[in-house]
């Protein structure tokens, strides 16, 4: 919902009034997404765009519904209402989106371009065809398999095709051997990028926490995603590891045709690398803009960053509230 996002953005923002990059060329569009669990509304009428080639951050206080949005996008939940459109190919592709929606289809393909309605697809097809990969808040590696095996499993569908659904591989066709070699090379590429190459033959459960986080990203990247969804990738990392993660994410964006959507609590990471920040609170979007806009948004500060720091309280409304509270406190003090 463009209008909502723009009304939320402060008036002084430099890009107000003009179309922003992520609204012109979105890789993912979430429209009126609502997710109810019984009586609880976890996400309420949420709309936002993820720009192609952008790093988009989804932030908000605990329980704001960020992970629910992720689970809806990646098919682990079926949203109660709403549409999520994944696009391969530049532009809005509005004709194709309309056609696939009206036709009751899951996806439509036209040459290089394709449009997927994620809420209609089962989770594994979202990864396989729509090419949305994800990581998990509580790391989900294959602990008893080696680091290399983890990355080979991620290339399951490619290898499955190359082995002619196992039959070709079983009788030892050369095509499978070539594909397996290529898969290993790709795994080695990502292991080098994530500096895990030395640990390639160790079980994944043996790795330290920070390495496991990077391995999960490497594994997701081995599926060659168009959109990479990272659920709190910097959680539990020390400042040095956090900085390395920033570098890795920026490398992924720069060198691969992969857009990134991430949930993050670490404001250092968010502010430094994101092109676009969407702020959720109680399942509702309260701000949408670039990092600077969001940082200065009074609603965001009130809801998320808090008003604990004296220096931060430069917003008239907040100051007014605070003065009232102080006034009330002093009145009470004098009364007693």
């Amino acid at each position, binding site marked *: 919902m463009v209008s909502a996002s723009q009304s939320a953005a402060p008036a002084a923002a430099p890009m107000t009034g003009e179309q922003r990059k992520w609204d012109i060329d979105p890789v993912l569009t979430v429209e009126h997404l609502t997710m109810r669990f019984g009586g609880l509304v976890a996400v309420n009428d949420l709309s936002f765009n993820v720009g192609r080639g952008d790093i988009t951050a989804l932030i908000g206080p605990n329980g704001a519904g960020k992970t629910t949005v992720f689970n809806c996008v990646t098919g682990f939940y079926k949203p109660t209402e709403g549409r999520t459109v994944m696009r391969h190919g530049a532009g809005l592709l509005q004709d194709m989106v309309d056609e696939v929606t009206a036709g009751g289809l899951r996806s439509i393909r036209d040459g290089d371009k394709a449009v997927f309605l994620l809420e209609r697809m089962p989770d594994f097809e979202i990864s396989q065809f729509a090419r949305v990969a994800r990581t998990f808040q509580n790391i989900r590696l294959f602990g008893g398999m*080696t680091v290399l095996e983890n990355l080979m499993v991620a290339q*399951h569908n490619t290898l499955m095709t190359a082995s002619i659904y196992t039959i070709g591989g079983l009788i030892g066709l050369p095509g499978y051997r070539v594909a397996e070699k290529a898969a290993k090379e790709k795994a080695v590429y990502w292991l080098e990028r994530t500096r895990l190459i030395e640990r390639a033959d160790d079980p994944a459960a043996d790795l330290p926490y920070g390495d496991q986080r990077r391995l999960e990203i490497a594994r997701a990247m081995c599926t060659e995603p168009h959109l990479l969804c990272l659920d709190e990738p910097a959680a539990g990392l020390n400042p040095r590891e956090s900085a390395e993660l920033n570098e890795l994410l920026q490398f992924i964006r720069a060198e691969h045709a992969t857009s990134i959507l991430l949930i993050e609590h670490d404001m250092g990471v968010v502010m430094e690398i994101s092109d676009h920040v969407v702020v959720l609170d109680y399942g509702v979007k309260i701000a949408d803009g670039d990092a600077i806009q969001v940082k200065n948004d009074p609603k965001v500060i009130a809801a998320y960053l808090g008003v604990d720091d004296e220096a931060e309280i430069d917003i008239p409304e907040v100051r007014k509230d605070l003065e009232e509270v102080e006034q009330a406190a002093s009145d009470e003090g004098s009364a007693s």
Partner: protein
Amino acid sequence: MAAGTPTAPTASNRPQGAQRALEERGDMPPAADHRTSMAGSLRDAATAAFLVFVLGFFFLGVRSDIAPGGLTLTFRWGLLAIAVAIVFGARLLLNIFVFRTARPLTQRMGGAISAQGRAFPNLGKWLGRALFAFAVILPFFFTYFFPGRERQYIDLAILIMTYIMLGWGLNIVVGLAGLLDLGYVAFYAVGAYSFALLAQHFEFIGFWTALPLAGLLAAFWGIILGFPVLRLRGDYLAIVTLAFGEIIRVVLLNWYEFTGGPDGISGIPKPTFFGLEFVRGEGGFADFFGIPFHNIHRFIYLYYIIFILAIITNLVTLRLRKMPVGRAWEALREDEIACRSLGINTTNTKLTAFALGAMFGGFAGSFFATRQGFISPESFTFLESAIILAIVVLGGLGSQIGVVISSIVMIGGIELLRNLGFLSQIFGPNFEPTQYRMLIFGIAMVLIMVWKPRGLVSTREPTAVLKEKKRIGADMVAQGEGH
């Protein structure tokens, strides 16, 4: 039990039961030196012996016999005293060596076994080769060295080989895909009955034509079972597979017009060697090759059939492990949600595991039918499923050589007890060792599980290696659903 939680490292794995016993022994003072004292051990053993006396008084001490004029009670004090003494002695020994010492014997032995394993990293490989070489020459070994008893030994080898094949088949489902299947015998039954019924109704169908059909039918039933259990996890999966095994058996038992019910099916044809039957006289195997007829030829031939079938099962499994589908099975065992996030169709992956495991079960089943010549539902009880599963679990989930060792130990061990005639010279003429085989079997299983909780061969071999192949310890590997 839970898929994601790794168990404690093996070195510190103390027997659960012992630990619990230590914790629950509330009357004992908590201090370590008191706990390990001799007096405490004696008191504990005495308590156990007293409990046995109280319980055993009614079960062992008193015996009611029907006599003219009503029941008479005879008291067997001697037997009761022996039972009490055994418990007292065993408990005391356990206390001294396991429960109440700083370094339990079980821990030391477990450590020693692990150390042996580390000292010979290629032990499994060489053991596998040696066993394979022996298996190839086995029939000739027995005919040469044990003339007169070779039929018995080759028969036993056939039986063990059947269980090895069943264990390998089940290993795909339980060990690799991590789906606990308590009804595996159903597929064994489907294979056996497919062949028996086909042979009964169609004159031209022999063992070799029925074999692939039996495998296909069993695989089909594997998929049929697979569908309802796709969404089930943990205990529910185990219960439904258990029920499936029973359903098949009960249907076979009650569908009298089709399966012959409890009468079974007899006259199942024997396998032929490229059309040559193993019969005396004109046109038989012996006649064709110009060797004197001997009954043993058919047994040797049967042995080689099941040997080759088992080896095919093993090779296919080993090969599949290194293929995307095999890796997907193992990934499924480790974390199903992560699998789906990587675009793996978990439905198909589970179904292929069930179908493939069932297919090998079906092959083994039709071999069983042709070997016996007669089948009835009695051969396909839950106990069979339990034995096959025990073979896989004792051998170590996912380990191929482990299945071989535990099959030899369990099936061979049980059969060995039949031949312990000399024991009756010690314990008197009424002593029948086979009566105790289930007891010994149970004790052996408990002991192995105490020492090696994850089976005899508990390490996992990686399927893809970059530089150096490192075996993965059991504490890292998840067990999947239903364990």
